[in-house]
């Protein structure tokens, strides 16, 4: 699980083009959205949906579901672990 969390942090940084940010800047359980966390917004959900499909074969068709899945890196890792097809 730790490996998956680290891997996801790197993939999120890459997918969202967060140049200069390091995995250490992202707390495992900090909210990804809103000003209290990473500051992501609804536009970024689309990028993260593509990330899951490309890398783990997970298709999220409902963006509202996406927002729940992307609550934090830990939540995201749990979801990937349970639903990945590759």
């Amino acid at each position, binding site marked *: 699980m730790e490996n998956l969390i680290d891997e996801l942090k790197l993939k999120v940084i890459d997918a969202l083009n967060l140049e200069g940010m390091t995995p250490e*800047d992202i707390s495992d359980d900090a909210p990804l959205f809103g000003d209290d966390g990473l500051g992501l917004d609804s536009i970024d959900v689309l990028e993260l949906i593509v990330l899951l499909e490309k890398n783990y074969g997970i298709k999220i068709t409902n963006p509202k579901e996406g927002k729940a899945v992307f609550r934090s890196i830990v939540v995201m890792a749990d979801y990937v672990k349970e639903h990945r097809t590759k």
Partner: protein
Amino acid sequence: MRTSVIPSGASLPTLYRSLAGDYPKFFKMDTACRLGFLLAEMLAKEDTDRFTPRTDRAILFFSHEGSQLTDRNYAETIKDFPSPAIFVYTIPNTVTGEIAIRNKWAGETGAYVLPEFDGVRILELIREAFQDGETSSVMAAWSDCRSDEEWTAKAWLIERNEIEQIKELSL
């Protein structure tokens, strides 16, 4: 008049960590917005009422390149998957919005693309901004981003009572 400068090629994430560090949205920004954000941080740190919402400070940005660097980066992503996160930075005035949101400055904003730096013309436009009867200070910047490593970035924070003494702005 306060001024701020970011030397071309400086590490913007390093500068961010030393000046702010509490605004992760910085990492989402393109280079042009990062420059504007940091120029504003340097100027605003001396404000006594930092982050108090205000409508009397205008933000005027000038450049030659506009958002062309990010336009090109976005065009590259179209070959694979068009990136919405990059697309939002494909207009030159995004930087003024980022600064307004961060600092709670709800005054006038403007982004101008000029053929080249023109300190007299820029000063004229700053002077015009004071004509609305509400603006008491203007943050103006020449922030010209030619690549992710090469730029000219200088900003001025000018109060209404200073404007008549200034004859020209220079880089």
